[in-house]
């Protein structure tokens, strides 16, 4: 049976029919979910999908009723026999699942369909805010449905808690296609038709350097201490190294204190734990948007903290001297609005260098934001995870830890990790530096849950300690490679007249594809995103960064030149298609208008229409000059 499913039939009816005959109801939850509908949604529009679902739901309901009738008869005869409940149970689970899926589709159908929007491939884009509401609604329906069908208090208990269902829904919504990508990665020799991922913000330009450095013999030290429980805040030797490292690279006015360092397995973990100790459930942080969407995820999943967006705009005006500028006025406004809505705001989250904009906050702006926070006694969480990825030398990045006097040091918390700056996201290392001992101690409790292996801590300690290698080998090479890749991409974008924002830092450019959207809506943005996916190119769309304006995409350029070249070919192909479709649509509209005006003359009509279409396409191609 499961083989049947795995083949991914695009005929849901057939698939579900076969499921109904399963004897083990517990298999139901694994079924169809991904494969069938993924397949289906690739081939059909969202409406077709829904129609098919409704049909199969109808079929399932009919079967269910038949079964019920049969069972009641049987029960009269053999009331005790448990076995008869099994197919019924299975059908109920199936019905629930179908409803669940339909709700998913309906929720996302409005904006283009969830399956049309696999934010997954982008590490950063896993937190579509909307999926939260979606999950909540669908789990309610799921629940209501079970309550309705739970006519006897037998074994029907859905396995997961509400938050478990929601977590799962998020996972399903966002990881399915990431896994597809994992299973079908582009490889320059072996798999040239695989997915190219310019969605996940990973630096793959220096794996040779890192591999070499990490293979050196000094990395392979094993000690009893590394194998035992250690200080849950992180091994003292690593915290000392981190303190020294940050003192040096952040240019701290005074040596930083290892006691203020907390080391956990990744910045997501740091953020999750920090949100938990700073906020109670339902409280909120302000966050300028577009923003790194992992924080939306991490604020929500465990911590149940909300993010209140401070919407920034691309339009330049008097109050907005550059696109997406963050000003204190906007912060004040957002805070006020949140208060009016009864939200308890506990802090402000800043990312510097910004992700996805690539902005760097000047020291003055930073000071303004910090003063604003102090005025409202808000915590400030500053994520400086790209601080060493500022590859344009003309730009001066200033870490918050470099400031002589912080307005409110007890409420200023800095996050850093090696994932981006050293391109080792698989290492799982993140660190918090806070002047607030109380916060550091509260965070320490999470060492149990976000601990790093002693062996890894040792390697990190060696890596961070090797200033000579970092300063003379790694950073110069990394910066020049980033620069080169950046130059390639920006030249490409300039030559095809695609507007973009980039400020010489980070691993990505923020591009505007608004002119390819008609109308300029998030639905169209998702469709375009989907088109890229169809051509095996993964980008992150603006929606996943909580961007207020449709049409923005983040493109990660920290990849090899060859990969970038292939990626850009796919990129242009999609844009050409997008334009062609636009032309076709225009022509169809025009023709339909004509058809209404003209008397019916079918043969000539269809002929002339074809001609027009073909010439339209040619025109479109030449317009783009491709």
């Amino acid at each position: 049976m499961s083989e049947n499913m795995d083949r991914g039939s695009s005929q849901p009816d057939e698939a579900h029919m076969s499921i109904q005959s399963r004897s083990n109801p517990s298999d139901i939850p694994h079924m169809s979910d991904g494969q069938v509908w993924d397949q289906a949604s690739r081939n059909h529009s969202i409406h077709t999908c829904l129609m098919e679902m409704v049909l199969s739901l109808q079929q399932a309901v009919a079967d269910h009723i038949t079964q019920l009738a049969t069972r009641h008869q049987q029960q009269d005869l053999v009331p005790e026999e448990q076995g008869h409940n099994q197919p019924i149970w299975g059908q109920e689970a199936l019905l629930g699942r179908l409803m669940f899926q339909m709700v998913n589709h309906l929720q996302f159908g409005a904006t283009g369909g969830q399956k049309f929007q696999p934010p997954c491939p982008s590490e950063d884009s896993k937190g579509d805010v909307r999926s939260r509401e979606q999950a909540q609604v669908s789990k309610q329906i799921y629940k209501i449905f079970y309550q309705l069908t739970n006519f006897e208090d037998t074994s029907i208990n859905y396995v997961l808690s509400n938050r478990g269902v929601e977590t799962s829904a998020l996972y399903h919504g966002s990881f399915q296609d990431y896994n597809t990508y994992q299973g079908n990665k582009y490889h320059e020799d072996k798999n040239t038709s695989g997915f190219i991922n310019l969605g996940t913000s990973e630096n793959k330009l220096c794996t040779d350097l890192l591999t070499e450095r990490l293979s050196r013999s000094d990395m392979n030290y094993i000690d009893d201490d590394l194998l035992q429980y250690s200080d849950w805040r992180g091994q003292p030797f690593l915290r000392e190294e981190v303190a020294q490292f940050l003192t040096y690279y952040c240019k701290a006015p005074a040596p930083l204190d290892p006691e203020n360092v907390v080391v956990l397995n990744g910045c997501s973990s740091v953020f999750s734990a920090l949100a938990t100790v700073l906020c109670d459930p339902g409280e909120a942080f302000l966050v300028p948007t577009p923003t790194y969407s992992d924080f939306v995820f991490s604020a929500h999943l465990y911590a149940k903290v909300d993010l209140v967006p401070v919407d920034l705009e691309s339009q330049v005006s008097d109050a907005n001297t550059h696109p997406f500028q963050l000003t204190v006025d906007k912060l004040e406004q957002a805070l006020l609005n949140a208060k009016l809505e009864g939200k308890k705001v506990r802090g402000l989250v800043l990312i510097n260098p910004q992700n996805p904009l690539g902005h760097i906050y000047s020291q003055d702006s930073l000071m303004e934001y910090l003063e604003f926070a102090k005025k409202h006694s808000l915590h400030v969480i500053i994520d400086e995870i790209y601080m060493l990825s500022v590859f344009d030398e003309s730009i001066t990045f200033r870490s918050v830890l470099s400031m002589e006097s912080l307005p409110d040091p007890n409420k200023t918390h800095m996050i850093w990790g090696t994932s981006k700056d050293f391109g080792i996201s698989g290492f799982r290392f993140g660190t918090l530096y806070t002047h607030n001992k109380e916060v550091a101690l509260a965070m320490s409790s999470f060492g149990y849950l976000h601990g790093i292996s002693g062996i890894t801590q040792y390697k990190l300690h060696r890596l961070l300690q090797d200033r000579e290698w970092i300063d003379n080998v790694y950073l110069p090479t990394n910066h020049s490679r980033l620069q080169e890749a950046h130059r390639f991409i920006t030249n490409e974008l300039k030559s095809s007249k695609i507007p973009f924002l980039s400020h010489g830092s980070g691993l990505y450019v923020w591009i505007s594809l608004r002119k390819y959207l008609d109308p300029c809506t998030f639905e169209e943005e998702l469709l375009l995103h989907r088109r890229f996916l169809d051509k095996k190119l993964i980008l992150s769309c603006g929606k996943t960064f909580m961007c207020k304006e449709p049409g923005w995409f983040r493109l990660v350029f920290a990849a090899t030149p060859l990969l970038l070249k292939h990626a850009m070919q796919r990129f242009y192909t999609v844009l050409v298609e997008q334009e062609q479709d636009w032309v076709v649509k225009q022509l169809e509209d025009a023709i339909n208008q004509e058809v209404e005006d003209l008397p019916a003359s079918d043969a000539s009509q269809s002929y002339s229409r074809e001609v027009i279409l073909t010439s339209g396409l040619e025109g479109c191609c030449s317009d783009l000059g491709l």
Partner: protein
Amino acid sequence: MPRPRPSSPYSARSPSPMFTLPQKESRKPTTCPGSVSTRGLHSIYGDGLEREAARKPDQKLLYGVGDPTAMFSSDSPHLSSRGSIIKWFWDSAEEGYRTYHMDEYDEDKNPGGIINLGTSENKLCFDLLSRRLSHSDMLRVEPSLLQYPDWRGHLFLREEVASFLSFYCKSPAPLKPENVVVLNGCASLFSALATVLCEVGEAFLIPAPYYGAITQHVYLYGNVRLVCVYLDSEVTGLETHPFQLTVDKLEMALQGAISEGVKVKGLILINPQNPLGDIYSPGELREYLEFAKRHALHVMVDEVYMLSVFEESVGYRSVLSLEGLPDPQKTHVMWATSKDFGMSGLRFGTLYTENQDVATAVASLCRYHGLSGFVQYQMAQLLRDRDWINQVYLPENHARLKAAHTYVSEELRALGVPFLSHGAGFFIWVDLRKFLPEATFEEERLLWRRFLENKVLLSFGKAFECKEPGWFRLVFSDKAHRLRLGMQRIRQVLEGKSQVAEDPPSCQTQEPRGPHR
């Protein structure tokens, strides 16, 4: 700056009733078997308050750190309400451990330092492990290990775990990699499972005494409670051994919890048990699983000591070896290398569940519980090396555990101290009730403090939520010289008890909590 408490689940459980009301009653030793006590997260630590109440005011200053009332009478200006509770956890939980760290025994540098027989770690095989982990096959660095992983764990590792568990748990059919989720330790696994199986405020049943840290693991993020199923040392009725878990006790605890309006979603079993060292027979295990199935409860079976059964006659059976589990979709098995491979610092744990909904939900939290690609690679190499495990590591480890166990149990016998031990785990459950002038937890703590003053750290029964005062857990999996010294110091305390008792407690002494891992 004071701020209004939000209307969150946390405010409903405002600290004062939390720390007083539920405990006064449940804390009394009761003779009723299987009596139930619904425990908030804090109740296990709550005796700090009792002690505080009993303490004379002039001594109060000595114990500022672990004082929950002080903690909660003033709202922290920087932390959320739950943040304050979490910090308090840390303060109370880690102080004992840190006291030990400040004065750790070292043969050369600090021979007068504290010997730690409290933390359940196997320190007998570091030589074997260091050597194995330094083999050249461990040192590979591949770019894919540097990048974002599959959050369930790298496939190569999950395959290795499945095959490893199939072999060592003697599963009737090969276990599947897709049912495996890999994360950074069993603490994380408890946290993730609590979150995806329970709503805020719901509960798991757990037979007590139990490994106390679970309380914190299920609370920190999950805000899930534990309902203790109290076991006692007296053998009554049809029981065959002390602290026996029976279905009756489970039923009574469950009904008790329900009558108090607590929604129970699952049952936690630790097998081999910590701290009792008990091993559940397949028959017993099946009864517990049937009980869970009757009440539609999940069962989380923590088998983290499964390869640390050093007495071959014991006949340990993993739950994964059972043919036809009563409710396979609700049976979730946990294992890790912390104990069986003596690498608690490695942070590797794994879940095996046939339930894909649960696996997926746990995996979706794994971005917060990931472990380095390198370590995943090394673990796969380690678990794959059956020759080394079967011919070198396990025989040697078991022989060393047995020798240490023999030594300690003989010492205890010589001291006339009763104890429980079943040839599994790293610890002996020691009955020091006769050394308490009064059967109270206050006295238990005083005795514990005398041990600490005599530079030997043990874990006392209260930390395991044992309802009878006077039980201690003694970890024996340590090197001979430390063990000898530790036992010597224990002997001194027990024999010279009256003399030590007259000394006032030292102001340096901190509260014990942390080491009971």
